[in-house]
């Protein structure tokens, strides 16, 4: 029973940490994506950099943040290392390029499609932008869902700057890694399936909710 409570606790923490991280990341990623489309400046270079950063190894990011947050590091005085907040910060940085890149693509496609149409029906600048924003929302929501699954499924950051501390910074992926290290492969697989099911359920829920709002 105690073990069950612990698992539920870990699951809830995972959802909370990755959810907040994704929300934070979308706060700056989505406006940036719109900015890149509307300004359309230096796009090839920015695109290349962002698309490369999508695949940044999570342990590398974890290591960099560890060096930054460690007590002898630049931001050591904040005392963030081995706290859930540290994982949130790390994951929000991790998913930023992903959310920008995916929403940029969908917004750009919509912009191409609707720009001339909006011009031809005599829409002014603000109206044009409102049309593009409202039409590109499903793509942006999809970008956020992808970001969320990347955040909840990543291991390196949670391990390095979370520390996998029981009841405090242990999340689903670090719990799975721990079970594997213990040789409890069966438990690890069960946890993995739970992780996938939860991510799928949350994706479906977000899609349904956003459909209601957009339509």
């Amino acid at each position, binding site marked *: 029973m105690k073990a069950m409570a612990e698992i539920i606790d870990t699951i809830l923490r995972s959802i909370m940490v990755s959810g907040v991280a994704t929300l934070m990341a979308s706060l700056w990623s989505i406006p940036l994506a719109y900015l890149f489309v509307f300004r359309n400046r230096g796009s090839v270079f920015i695109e290349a950099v962002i698309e490369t950063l999508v695949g940044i190894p999570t342990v590398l990011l974890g290591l960099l943040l560890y060096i930054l947050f*460690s*007590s*002898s590091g630049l931001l050591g005085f904040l005392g963030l*290392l*081995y706290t859930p907040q540290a994982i949130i910060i790390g994951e929000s940085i991790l998913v930023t390029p992903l959310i920008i890149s995916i929403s940029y693509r969908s917004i750009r496609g919509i912009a191409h499609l609707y720009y001339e149409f909006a011009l031809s029906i005599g829409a002014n600048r603000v109206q044009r932008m409102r049309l593009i924003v409202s039409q590109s929302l499903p793509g942006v929501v999809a970008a956020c869902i992808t970001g969320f699954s990347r955040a909840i499924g990543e291991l390196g950051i949670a*391990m390095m700057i979370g*520390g*996998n*501390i*029981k*009841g*405090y910074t*242990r999340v689903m992926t*670090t*719990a799975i890694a*721990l079970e*594997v*290290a*213990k*040789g*409890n*492969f069966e438990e690890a697989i069960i946890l993995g399936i739970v992780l996938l099911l939860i991510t799928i359920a949350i994706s479906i829920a977000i899609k349904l909710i956003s459909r209601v709002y957009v339509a």
Partner: protein
Amino acid sequence: MKNRFAAITLLMLFATILIIYYNMHSIHPTRVRISTTTSLYATGLLDYIAVKFRELYPDVEIQFIPVGSSAALRYAERGDVCAVFVHEPNFEKKYLDMGVIEEQKIFAFNYFIIVGPREDPANISMAIDVVDAFRRIYSAERESTYFISRGDGSGTHTREIYIWKLAGISPTDRPWYKECGCGMDQALIIANELKGYTLSDVGTYMVLKIRGRIPNIEALYNSSTDIVLLNIYSGYLAKGCRGIERRYAELFLNFIYSNPDIVDNFGVNEYGVRLFYSARHFDGDIRDLWSKLAGIG
């Protein structure tokens, strides 16, 4: 258009040939896979021995898979490795009884130590024995001294739990008791960051210390007479391993066992202390101690 197509085809063909050529020349006749506890691997001992072994048997490639002791034994159970190196007597006993591993060779030992912040707020360096040291940690006046527990069911973790049991106290519900569910190196790094205490094997501690990774913590309590702090490393053959691989795995185990100097001298130049002691000269005694340790936890 046609030219470009031909050029791409040629390029791909060339790349394929290159890959095949590379693979043909990197295949070795015999590969022996050994799963090992991380503490042995991280110190570099195993690679060091493998190089020496390679001088005698150039056709054999020994490959190490560093995982926790319990995972190492699971790999043996599944038949994925030919031999295992572990330091968790009670688990080893279980797998020996299950008939998964055989031909035990106790080849090295060293000691567990208690490390902690240099200021030593719990004053464990004055402890009379390890149980007393743990009691001191438990009853220390604390503002922000933690105890970092491995929490991963490893040999070190099992031992730590056993010492708490000997002390007759249970710290698991205390706010200062942090279970990191991690390897020894990570636990030491966390202890260093939080200025906490932890139980460590001397090898991993020395390696990190010399590399300057853990400046805030020191070895505060050690004892070479306390059986509870004895850390015994054994090698086993996996029962599922047969044929030429098994022969070489056996040769490798015997090689370590019959060359005590290699184990004894390893790391002395680099770290200034002996990280491992060869068990060969203490064969009978250490087997008794192993059996005692196998009964705990």
